[in-house]
């Protein structure tokens, strides 16, 4: 009886040990080219962020293609183990032109976005692999608010601001406010800005308009932590 029990325990021990060893073998230990391609996703993302930061700061609209071409040359020049092929397509659609979409609307909503798809192919004597993915970088600004009439011409504008990266709330800086007085845009010198530390800000400043009860058109540009500018305009009405 004791020997039968010992035999069962021994079999259990052996099967557990074999299972653990087999599972351990499935851990990736070889630096396959596909891992490298997915690794380059961050480098590609950085390139899109750089191009978008450049364009939204007033740079060349065709910069994304130039930067990706430069990146491709650098990756190919530093690949010693396999023959690589890298292709990319900058999105061209109703919104995107050359992979970029910068839309700072008058409805309190602004978008700065870059989108490109990539295809990596690798062939070496031992293996051939290919990977495809798309990378999207989008900074979004949402503002809403109203004004409080302080006297005949002065209005206090109160705004709530949200900044998002790929739909997630992020911190921002370099807030530049201005408001429309007749046909001129008047920069706001010292707005009062409060941060809720979660990507939401409130801001208030005084504006002067010619007529009582006129709506106030405000403009806001800001920069997210990646250095991408995004802006929006909003027509504020009285409380």
């Amino acid at each position, binding site marked *: *009886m*004791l*020997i039968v*029990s*010992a*035999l069962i*325990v*021994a*079999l259990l*021990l*052996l099967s557990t*040990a074999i299972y*653990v*060893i087999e599972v*351990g073998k499935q851990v*990736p*230990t*070889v*630096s396959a080219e596909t*891992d*490298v391609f997915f*690794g*380059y996703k*961050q*480098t*590609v*993302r*950085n*390139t899109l*962020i*750089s*191009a978008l*930061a*450049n364009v939204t*700061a007033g*740079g060349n609209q065709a*910069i994304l293609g130039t*930067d990706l071409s*430069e*990146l491709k040359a*650098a*990756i190919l020049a*530093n690949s*010693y183990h396999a023959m690589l092929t890298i292709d990319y397509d900058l999105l061209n659609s109703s919104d995107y032109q050359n992979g970029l979409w910068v839309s700072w609307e008058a409805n309190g909503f602004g978008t700065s976005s870059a989108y490109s798809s990539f295809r990596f192919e690798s062939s070496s004597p031992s293996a051939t692999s290919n990977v495809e993915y798309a990378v999207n970088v989008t900074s979004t600004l949402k503002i809403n608010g109203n004004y409080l009439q302080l006297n005949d011409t002065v209005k206090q504008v109160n705004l709530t601001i949200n900044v998002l990266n790929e739909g997630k709330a992020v911190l921002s800086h370099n807030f530049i406010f201005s408001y429309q007085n007749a046909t001129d845009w008047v920069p706001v010198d010292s707005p009062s800005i409060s941060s809720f530390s979660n990507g939401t800000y409130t801001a208030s400043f005084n504006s002067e308009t010619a007529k009582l009860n006129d709506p106030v058109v405000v403009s806001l540009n800001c920069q997210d932590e*990646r*250095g991408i500018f995004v802006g929006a305009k909003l027509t504020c009405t009285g409380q």
Partner: protein
Amino acid sequence: MRLLNNKKGQVRVIEAFFASMLLLGCLALIPAPTTPKGSTVNLVWKAQNVLLTLDGDGHLAGLVDNRNWTSIEQIVESALPLTTWFNLTVYDQTQNILNPFPISNGGAISGNVVSYDYVCASQSSTFVVYVLQLQLAVMD
């Protein structure tokens, strides 16, 4: 005299002896896990993992942009085991070395050294590509 004639007790002892031998034999049969410590493949994989992880949110590119070599040395050192020697060299696109002093945790070693090149792009509005070459070896 009664004790010597008790055959049942002796059988139990022999049974227990065989059972324990069976268990010990089974333990001896379990193969030791083979981890390729210090092997080239493992080190290349480790070098790749370190660089990809550190550049996960563009942090590494930002440090190179700011020429913050001391911080780069610290984060690479913290990402590797104490027994692993490393030497990181940062090149620009024209293969000029950018780091003014070696980013390393020690002098030259005699072991098998592997090298991994990672192309890293800056997030700043002025686009720059860097090539980071991480050399690793296991110290004896």
